[in-house]
């Protein structure tokens, strides 16, 4: 056992380096004062953040992504919570089917889900117009996270608590609102934040299902990088990393205790 300790430490450090190095490099690259996306940076400067803030394409993309993520998260929260409630309260084959269905977008490669949706929406004659396909894709990608988090917060909960509320005179809906909802709130919040981040960051789904006109941030960034190779792209990435970091930290501070 003792012999394994240095090896374990080495593996642990390697994993962290492997995971964090790209993020560190992107952040450093965004502070580059030079004209090209290079590493190590040539002098430090915030000029590319300034450039980015004045670039309507990116600002629009961020707003578009945020709105898309908010809407997808809202829909996911409703559907995912309903599915979680059903799954936790029924020990049936149907409930198992619901669980697998909810987790499928997580199990399947993103690209498969995207292509399947693309075929489907062309088949029913809508195609990628009206952003319905894109929106549906985002809801699907975010559903597993809501489902998993709410399921976790429901499991181990005493189901008779809701029944107790019923005998005390609460309708099904009131019992849910006054008793169940507060109890699963941490799961909802965590699931919601996860969903938002996933939707904000996801690439494959957006790439395949996006229609004409506005595009989510990752797509816009990709388009930009094909023709430009300035640190502005790194600045955009850094902002999006910061946003994610803030959300995760907030959720951890508020709900980490539960």
């Amino acid at each position, binding site marked *: 056992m003792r012999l394994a300790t240095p090896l374990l430490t080495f593996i642990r450090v390697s994993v962290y380096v492997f995971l964090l190095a790209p993020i560190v490099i992107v952040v450093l690259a965004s502070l580059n004062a030079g004209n090209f996306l290079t590493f190590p940076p040539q002098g430090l400067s915030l000029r590319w953040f300034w450039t980015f803030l004045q670039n309507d394409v990116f600002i629009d993309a961020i707003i578009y992504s945020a709105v898309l993520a908010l809407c997808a998260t809202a829909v996911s929260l409703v559907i995912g919570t309903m599915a979680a409630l059903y799954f936790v309260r029924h020990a049936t084959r149907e409930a198992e089917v619901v669980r697998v269905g909810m987790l499928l977008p997580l199990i399947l490669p993103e690209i498969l889900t995207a292509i399947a949706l693309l075929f489907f929406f062309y088949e029913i004659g809508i195609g990628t117009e009206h952003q319905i396909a894109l929106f549906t894709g985002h809801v699907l990608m975010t559903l597993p996270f809501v489902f998993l988090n709410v399921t976790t917060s429901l499991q181990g909960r*005493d189901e*008779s*608590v809701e*029944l*107790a*509320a*019923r*005998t*005390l*005179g*609460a*309708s*099904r809906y*009131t019992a849910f609102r*006054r*008793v169940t909802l*507060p*109890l699963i709130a941490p799961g909802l919040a965590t699931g919601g934040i996860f969903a938002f981040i996933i939707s904000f960051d996801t690439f494959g789904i957006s790439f395949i299902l996006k229609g004409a006109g506005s595009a989510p941030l990752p797509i816009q960034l990709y388009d930009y990088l094909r023709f430009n190779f300035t640190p502005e792209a790194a600045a955009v990435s850094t902002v999006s990393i910061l946003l994610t970091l803030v959300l995760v930290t907030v959720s951890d501070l508020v709900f980490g205790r539960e």
Partner: protein
Amino acid sequence: MTEVSLLSLVKSYGKSIALKGISLSVGHGEFVSLLGPSGCGKSTTLKCIAGFEDISDGKILFDNTDISRRLPEQRDIGMVFQSYALFPHMTVAQNLAFGLEMRRVPKSEIATRVARAMEMVQLTPYAERFPKALSGGQQQRVALARALVIEPAILLLDEPLANLDAKLRDEMRGFIRDLQKRVGITTIYVTHDQGEAMTMSDRVVVMFDGEIAQAAPPEEVYNHPASERVARFVGNANILDLAVTGKDAAGSDLALPGGGALRVDSPAPWANGRLRVMARPEQIALTDPGAGHLGGEISKRYFSGGHVEYHVDTQCGPLVVLGPTTQTVAEGQTVALAFDPARLWPIPDPKGPAQ
């Protein structure tokens, strides 16, 4: 105060039938216990009364009104769960106020009624605590107060003491019983603990396999069980299978192996010409060999504080006898057992009425 009637209540889950036609009437202010082994349908009966489960057939009446189609929130019941089911995100006071808020009781009245209820269960100092910060016994009392503060028509309790330690359980038995008497509320209490059912209830309903085996006052169930299964479930039972040597209008003469004879007040033997009689361990006395009705040998002796339990090998099989601690009989000793004929209970023939 409300009268509860169950009329041929049937509850099936798919192919399995949990309740096979339960008929029971619980009077105004009566305390009735449903007693039976695990899986016999006690909780299911309670859930049907509470409205958590749709019934498959039959009727449930509260004061002659059929309520079997009403939603739980329309039935006016107070319920205490085995897990207490307190709202973890509300304080004790908020837990108690919940039912009153649902009934749109004015704020000022809520405050006074909650205060009174907390006093009733001696929890006033804990009003602002969350359930997590209470002991099991205190949580239990909160659950009780929460169920009673709405002044429901009936009170349902599903194994409320099962999660408490033995000493607290004994205390709570008395507490619940006193409270119930004071409030005078019609109560149905589910337990698989026969001692609990005996000490608390006006009437004990013994259930097996989704059916009622006997519904009678505790003494009646204990001394005059309707069947051998009831006899064995409710306390320790010695069952002797004896030959009937004669019978008249007043009773039957029974022969014991070894020459002893007994007479019991039973009009008829079973179809096979024999009679099965029950004697509770404390209804049998240990005497010197030669005296009494039946010889035997002590195989085991257990001292348990208040009395001594003897396991006696006899020609009628192994029997259990409770003796006073003042009497000293050692393991391996030869003894005789004396029965009190007046307290021997001939078990009714399950194949039909003993005529």
